[in-house]
């Protein structure tokens, strides 16, 4: 009996240790997967590139908040902010606090897209050789677009003092694989960031195809380049870049009611005027311009009301003056963002005509067409009366630009480069007021000792 018991005990005890197969501890992640498994083939690289588009479509970047904040911070009495979010309210009142959570997330979401683009660029060898240059062009378009957006809100305006001394944003061109002292990257100068942006976009323009579905194209790179040059007051290059887009013949103006998706609750579409748009579907993507400009009956929060005075900018036959609607509470809304799943037009052809017109006008050139022809091209599409050469001044060109591009996110940048002032309450803020530049986010200042805060914060 005793022997049996001991035997039994031994068997049981042995059983305990036998159960100890260490393999039981190898549980692999299946919802997310390991990095090594994720990036081994050409289609893996393609998926990563798509991930970079998704990243720039973030609601905090091109998904709408970047444009919204440029309109609020640059606003000069066209709209009223009625929402409760503190961050955009600070933009509207031009009193941005260093802990503003939007400037914090805009910064990190833009760099997230940059890191993905950098990862694509570092793994180009995975791509089929026929795709390599297209993929490189797309990644560089994305990277340059983000650096351009960052430098113009976090750095001083081009020409506000010494561009080679003014601080822009940190430039990172390689993927992050580890966090160490070297990741505390200091801010490069405004000039250095513009140089990087122009280099990437120029490269992208040469490598991208003319058509590429809804992804970046040669035209998109040139259009973005025209914005960059216009922002740095380089009118010759701005006119040339805009002209390349127009002359390329890939895009054409469409009827005004088609430019903006006036359908509701339906996945967005591009038109032949679209040069580059963030794609929104009812399954994926967020149209934050709808969120903030749209009435609640169209899925928005209705936080931004259009002031009645703005409507007087349009002559009666200008159909752009009809792109407004009163909502259930009687507030005036822009119809540009009535479709909550509508695509977000980042770059569209009308802007190229306006840019070419302005740049030609300022440079005294007529690359591609005369400024008058370009302005009237845009006006006639809107069924507005054609201007005569006597009407044509820099002011009328800029007014036309505002009428056409209102609420699309160009306002702050146009105010700065055209050296306008903004009246906020009884205070007049000059174009280079420190209150019109974002602070470096407090989170970044606390995390990265190499960063220097902006003046005024």
């Amino acid at each position, binding site marked *: 009996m005793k022997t049996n018991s*001991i035997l039994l005990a031994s068997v049981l005890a042995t059983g305990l240790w036998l159960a100890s197969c260490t393999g039981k*501890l190898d*549980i692999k*992640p299946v919802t997310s997967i390991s*990095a090594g498994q994720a990036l081994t083939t050409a289609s893996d690289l393609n998926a990563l590139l798509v991930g970079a588009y998704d990243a720039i479509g973030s609601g905090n970047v091109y998904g709408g908040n970047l444009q919204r904040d440029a309109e609020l911070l640059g606003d000069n009495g066209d709209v009223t902010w009625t929402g409760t979010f503190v961050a955009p309210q600070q933009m509207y009142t031009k009193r941005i606090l260093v*802990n503003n959570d939007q400037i914090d997330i805009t910064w990190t979401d833009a760099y997230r897209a940059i890191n993905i683009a950098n990862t694509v660029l570092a793994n180009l060898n995975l791509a089929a050789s026929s795709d390599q240059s297209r993929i490189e062009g797309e990644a560089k378009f994305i990277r340059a677009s983000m650096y351009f957006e960052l430098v113009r809100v976090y750095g001083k305006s081009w020409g506000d003092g010494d561009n080679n001394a003014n601080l822009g944003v940190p430039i990172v061109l390689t993927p992050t694989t*580890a966090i160490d002292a070297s990741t505390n990257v200091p801010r490069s100068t405004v000039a250095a960031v513009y140089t990087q942006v122009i280099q990437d976009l120029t490269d992208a323009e040469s490598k991208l195809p003319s058509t590429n579905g809804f992804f970046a194209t040669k035209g998109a790179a040139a259009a973005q380049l025209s914005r960059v040059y216009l922002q740095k007051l380089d009118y010759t290059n701005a006119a040339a870049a805009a002209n390349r887009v127009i002359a390329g013949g890939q895009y054409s103006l469409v009827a005004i009611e088609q430019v903006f998706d006036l359908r509701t609750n339906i996945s967005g579409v591009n038109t032949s005027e679209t040069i580059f748009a963030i794609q929104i579907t009812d399954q994926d993507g967020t149209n934050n311009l709808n969120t903030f400009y749209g009435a609640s009956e169209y899925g928005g929060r209705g936080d931004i009301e259009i002031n009645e005075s703005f409507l007087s900018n349009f002559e009666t036959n200008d159909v752009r003056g009809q792109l407004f609607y009163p909502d259930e*509470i009687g507030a005036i809304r822009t119809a540009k963002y009535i479709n909550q799943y509508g695509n977000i037009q980042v770059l569209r052809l009308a802007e190229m005509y306006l840019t070419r017109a302005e740049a030609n006008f300022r440079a005294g050139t007529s690359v591609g067409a005369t400024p008058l022809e370009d302005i009237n091209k845009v006006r006639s599409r809107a069924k507005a009366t054609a201007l005569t050469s006597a009407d044509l001044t820099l002011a009328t060109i800029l007014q036309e630009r505002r009428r056409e591009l209102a609420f699309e996110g160009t306002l702050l940048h146009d105010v700065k480069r055209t050296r306008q002032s903004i009246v906020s309450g009884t205070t007049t803020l000059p174009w280079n007021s420190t209150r019109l530049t974002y602070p470096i986010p407090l989170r970044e200042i606390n995390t990265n000792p190499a960063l220097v805060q902006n003046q005024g914060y």
Partner: protein
Amino acid sequence: MRLLLSKLTVLLLVLLALPALAQSRRVTGQVTSAEDGTPLPGVSIIAKGTSRGTQSDANGNYSLELPPNINTLVFSFVGVTTQEISVGNRATVNVAMSNDTRALDEVVVTGYGAQSKRNLTGNIAQVSSREVANIPVPSAEQALAGRVAGVQITSLNGKVGQGLQIRVRGAASLTASSQPLYVVDGIPVTSSDQSSTTAPTNPIADLNPNDIESIEILKDASAGAIYGSRAANGVVLITTKKGKAGKTTFEVGAQYGISNPTHLRTWLNTNQYVELLQEALTNSINLGYLAPGTSLNNRFTRYAAGDATGWQAPNPKYNTDWQKEAFQKAPTQQYDFNARGGDAKTRFYVSGQYFDQNGILIKNRFRRLSGLANLDHTASEKLTIGVKLNLINSINDRVSNDNAFSTPMQIVALPPMTPVIDPRTNQLSGNYTLYYNPLLNRDFAALQTRVFRVLTNSYAEYKIVPGLTFHTDFGTDIIGQQEEEYYGQETARNTGAPNGLGINSFRQVVNYTTNNYLSFGRTFAEKHDVDATLGMSYQQSRSNFASVTGQQFPSDAYKQITSAARITGGAGNETGYSFLSYFARVNYRFDNKYILGASARVDGSSRFGANNRYGVFPSISAGWIISDESFMQSVPVISLLKLRASYGLTGNAEIGNFNSQALYGAASATGVSYGYAGVPGQAPIQIANPNLTWEKTLQADFGLEFGLFNNRLSGEIDYYQKNTTALLLNVNVPGSTGYRTQLRNVGKLDNKGVEVVLSSQNLTGALKWNTSFNIAYNTNRVTDLGGTTITGSFLNRAQEGQPLGVFYGPEYAGVDPQNGDALYRITTTNADGTTNRNATTNDYNVASSPENLVALGSPTPKFIGGLTNTFSYAGVDLSVLFQGQAGNYIYNGGGKFQSANGDYFDNQSVDQLNRWRKPGDITNVPQARLLGGNGTGESSRYLQRGDYVRLRTVTLGYTLPQSIVNRVKLNKVRVYVTGFNLLTFTNYTGWDPEVNSDAYTGNPVNLGVDFYSAPQARTITGGIQIGF
């Protein structure tokens, strides 16, 4: 390591074979109740120092073969004082056992075993079934508040069925969970939030508190180390009721009651609101913030349903008390039944319960239907087997988290001139209100969580030889949870879905565990007692989630996803983990006075980084029962004096399942696709850290236990120090890397504290009066964060040298009497280089620059405690529990909206009428400025002390005299009334000082935050218990 343990096993087996055979003898007898002389079945009788034992049968009789050299029998029974009887030459030993339980001799569950409290060298707090039964709360832990020294239990807000925050001896973690490990009948169960929305749920609320026999909380390292890498936050062992041999007893109970909010706040009425806002407008125009000529009249009229008379003084037509609308009539009811009985061979406990509690908030309700069967069968003298089956269905009607326009409490932001019903439509006021009207969610939306849960456990115990038992068990915890959400067309303003939004989610969590261990207990040479445990455990958990979202429903009558014209979202994911563990424990007692203990666990887990797969968690402890020394026998006043000390290492493995790896995803952690317009995409989501490991807590504990005057006064004093290292942190990294954070083991924090427990029997005659008191002091300090600071949503931080979650930010300095500007203190340097805080600024950006920020207070109380008094006299019983905490602060994150001196159109708390109006005014409320941001930045303006004392539970019961009860053939009839949260004493001016908003718990630095958090419920119930 495994090899070493194998050798130990062999050694143990060899030891067992040593005792030589000798002559044994048989002892018989009967066990009766000392109170009424009735036979006591099921009493365990053991030959002392051996594992040889038996149980008394249905008539209280027993018979036991007494081994040679053994002369003492140990009689023990749950709830009854254990007795040791010297047999002498007797062949018959009859024993009368007393129900008069003395705390010091209770048997305490220790994890893989049990021990008498007298022999414990660790700190284990025990709570009995009486203290958690029939309290009108869904979850047993809620009833523990104030009962256990050093255990802080906070309901996040007044929503029923919501998550709880439990801290054992302070928070020992930051990023990883600080919640304790829950083990129910030996099986670690799922206790973390399973909600797919941002409002957490509490899986422990699935357990019927009336099924609980005891709850043990393992607080120090020597008690916890047996649970190794998961014990650093303490371990909660829950033991369910088991069968007892004897006559089958039945008990039915019913309870009914009503809940109300503990406290309401006062808001402006229409006249006050209009006056304040008009004044704010005028001031902002004068200061140039707003254009001259701006008028609010149209806006007010819009808010007043288009009717200017709705808001105009002196007698506005509308004057709505919106706060009142957030609450509902809240009945609560409970019906339960149990049967208990069995014989010497087979014993059972079965129970069923229906619990239904309406929350005080509109559309908030928790229901639970549960059944439990515990069956034990003694197959032979050597083999006992048993099975437990616990089936639960809980249904929770939930509301949105605190930071949602749709959550009921945010209704207080609506201006008082808005009528509840829009007279133009006779519908609820909808699209014209300042914010979304949460009443629309009451009428047109639903969020229901339905949980089906199965907890099972099968075990076998085999007595291999006397003193050596092998225990094996296999347990499962299976959760099937469905969450169904529907938001009707009327809620479009909130959901952004014009024709209805439906979400249907399903989650399955399958968790199984097997424990296999040998227990050894033996007395050598009468004076040397050895208890040992050696075993292994394997646990695997897998969690699957799937969800479908649809929009465009024909009408609100169609709520199922299949009726949606557009399926707009879908999610499916899986995660899992496993633990493979070996554990050992040895206790050695010499002469029943000197006790030594040691234990260790080796834990391996799939969660740990490749470089750190296994961890070892040892502990040692010692105890000295001084009162048993001969020199103490001359001090009869002292009935017990015991010193104990322990030291050991435990871990925290709640580090996430795959956090050590570099990961790519095709969707974010929250399920947002990285694809783009239907084209598949992927993106890096996590940067690798192969060194990632468990957090380590080294804890030392020194305790003194005493009993005076024959244990009429007894108590325990403990001092502990817990040093946690390898603290897991989501360290902020520069955004230019493309990541926001990286998870690292970088931090250190300490908890130090003192716990005092006192119990006294003040009166023992016909009127009995017992008092038990506990108080705990704890200080928490983050000592190392690798130089970084972790910020929370408001002012909370984790910062070196400060307590965890410290409120750190601009210090509000009141109002400038000259111009009504909000002022903040700044740091200026004196001539001698020291600094002072005398100067102020009205510029919030200056005030929030790093050199001007200061620590403003800790969200964690320094003191927590409870005081229970129980009285009984002639069938009447009264129990009164006060519970409280002190030394903590609460930040009202909603302050900048609620109390913002007319900064925006939110209705304001009534104290805002004290705003600065003219030069010379001395007040704490700055000048009203519409959109002026005057004092509305996060600062100590919205910080308050959170001290409170609460009359937590009062129960008054009456047990009918036996003579009456027996006449109607019953055993026992008791009626009672219970009040929960009856009174609260606090200076906190928010809704309730027991708070930590559910909207921000995702970041563990966010502590002590109030954000439109509902007050706790004050519940009064009446009930009856009938036994037959």
